[in-house]
């Protein structure tokens, strides 16, 4: 319980968690409470500024921006979480294996990640999706191809250290099976830095997903994805800045939330002293 205690003592972690909670509650409640449909057109009510009825105003089709932003959270968070934790799982396993067994596998992996590291994240994702063509599936392919690298490197490094620790030696002496040693004994120790890293990864990934939509390479309309909401707002930026402002703030909200949780985690997980 010291972890929970430490996490709670750190205010930023709590604030971040609260921010994400607030969003989740809004996602759960809005479809029940909101009188507006995120897809229903109403040309008569187009481009209305924020008001008591439309908290974030309406867009060029008269759709309620608040409802759309909240509906977008489901989209963006689902995409971002899959695109981070899917590859993360793969990266963790690769890192564990490479770090534990060492040898040729390890050095090949290290050369590969060294080289892959040189490709700028945005360039790589854009190029892959660009070549495959715009669709949600291709978005997943691109992120799975790119996002595992960081985890493999982190976990491999940690595994190298952990594998030499006494209790792992003990497990080896006891002739536990290799998977058991890897996953039961080593992984729990190596996973924490990967977890901290994943929080900032979520922030980058959610931004990249929105950016891909922005270039027309991601999710297709009329999905209320935040990046799409921003693209669609550009021509109306001047008369209806709320159309641009709120989806961006939602992205920032998620970004800050995860960053703060990440900070809280890293302080709580830091070894004493």
């Amino acid at each position: 319980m010291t972890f929970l205690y430490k996490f709670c003592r750190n205010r930023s972690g709590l604030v971040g968690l609260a921010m994400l909670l607030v969003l989740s509650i809004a996602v759960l409640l809005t479809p029940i409470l909101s009188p507006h449909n995120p897809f229903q057109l109403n040309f008569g009510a187009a481009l209305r500024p924020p008001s008591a009825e439309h908290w974030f105003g309406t867009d060029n089709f008269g759709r309620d921006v608040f409802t759309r932003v909240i509906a977008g959270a489901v989209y963006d968070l689902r995409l971002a979480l899959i695109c981070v934790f899917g590859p993360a799982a793969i990266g963790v396993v690769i890192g564990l294996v490479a770090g534990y067994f060492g040898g040729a596998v390890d050095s090949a992996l290290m050369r590969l990640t060294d080289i892959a590291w040189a490709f700028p994240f945005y360039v790589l994702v854009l190029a892959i999706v660009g070549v495959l063509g715009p669709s949600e599936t291709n978005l997943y392919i691109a992120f799975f191809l790119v996002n595992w690298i960081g985890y493999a490197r982190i976990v491999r490094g940690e595994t190298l250290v952990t594998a030499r620790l006494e209790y792992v030696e003990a497990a080896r002496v006891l002739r536990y099976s290799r998977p058991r040693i890897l996953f039961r004994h080593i992984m729990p120790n190596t996973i924490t830095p990967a977890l901290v890293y994943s929080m900032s990864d979520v922030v980058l990934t959610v931004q990249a997903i929105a950016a891909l939509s922005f270039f027309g390479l991601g999710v297709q309309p009329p999905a209320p994805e935040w990046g799409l909401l921003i693209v669609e707002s550009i021509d109306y930026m001047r008369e209806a800045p709320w159309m641009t402002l709120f989806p961006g703030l939602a992205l920032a909200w998620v970004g800050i939330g995860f960053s703060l949780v990440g900070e809280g985690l890293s302080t709580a997980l830091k070894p004493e002293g």
Partner: protein
Amino acid sequence: MLRSILQRLLMLIPVLIGITLLGFLLLQVVPGDPVERAMGTRASAEEMDAMRRQWGLDQPMWRQYLLFLRDCITGSFGTSLFHKLPVSTLVLERLPFTLAIVAYSTVLALLIAMPFAILAALRRGGMVDLAIRQLFVFVIALPPFWLCFLFILWLSLGLGLFPTGGIGDGLVQNLHRLFLPSLVVGLSTAALIQQSLRATLIETMSADYVDTARAKGLSRVQVFTRHILRNSLISTISIVGVRIGWIIGSTVVVEKIFSVPGLGSLLIDAIVSRDFPVIRGLTVIFAMLVVLVNLLTDIAYSIADPRVSLD
């Protein structure tokens, strides 16, 4: 010194070859025939056959890679389907703008980060330190492409301080025109620099030689500027070097929005017109750029701080 630089250059060769291989393989994931995907029904069957031969697609995979490697070594990096020009020609036309944004944004990042880092280091652990840290968490969380529009809306349209995009004539005009795109890139760099600078400042402040300097009778300000700040700044060079991939990557988004004709705009245009040779060549060039800048910062670092060796 020279020898170690040479050594590093030699070590670069396998990395560069690896980059071409990885770039080649990644873009080989295209399902189906790339010629058909690129040309659609624009070309006749004979034209497509000719193109397959020209691309070497009738060859086995390893030959195809060698052909691409040859293009990279001879410096053309392939030929654009769309512009019918070597990729290198297209790249060199646009490179100065991208490099300008990278350099400009780094300078802006330093200017933004330095005062905050110093303040945070001096008041470490206090409210000011905490507030500054939260400020930069906030800055990083803002999506860059959205920030672009926010700045356009506020600084260009609202206050009329900056043009909304494009490039200008001459240094002064470009410093003005490229300010907003560089600022957007620079803000996220600033967050990084601030963090690392604060940490090294705190570390250096408690170092032995600082005490020695103070004992020699130098004033606090002198000690700070001559010793602590100088040494800490040197170590941030390497931070910028490590993050150069990120900085170069962010220019892609920013260039397109501010219509700066740099490498990023070229990449997006190539994707939109499905100019596969350009996408591939450019991806590889981006990675090489990162490796080279990394090397340069390492060299600069080792020159600025003789205690660091290149090995």
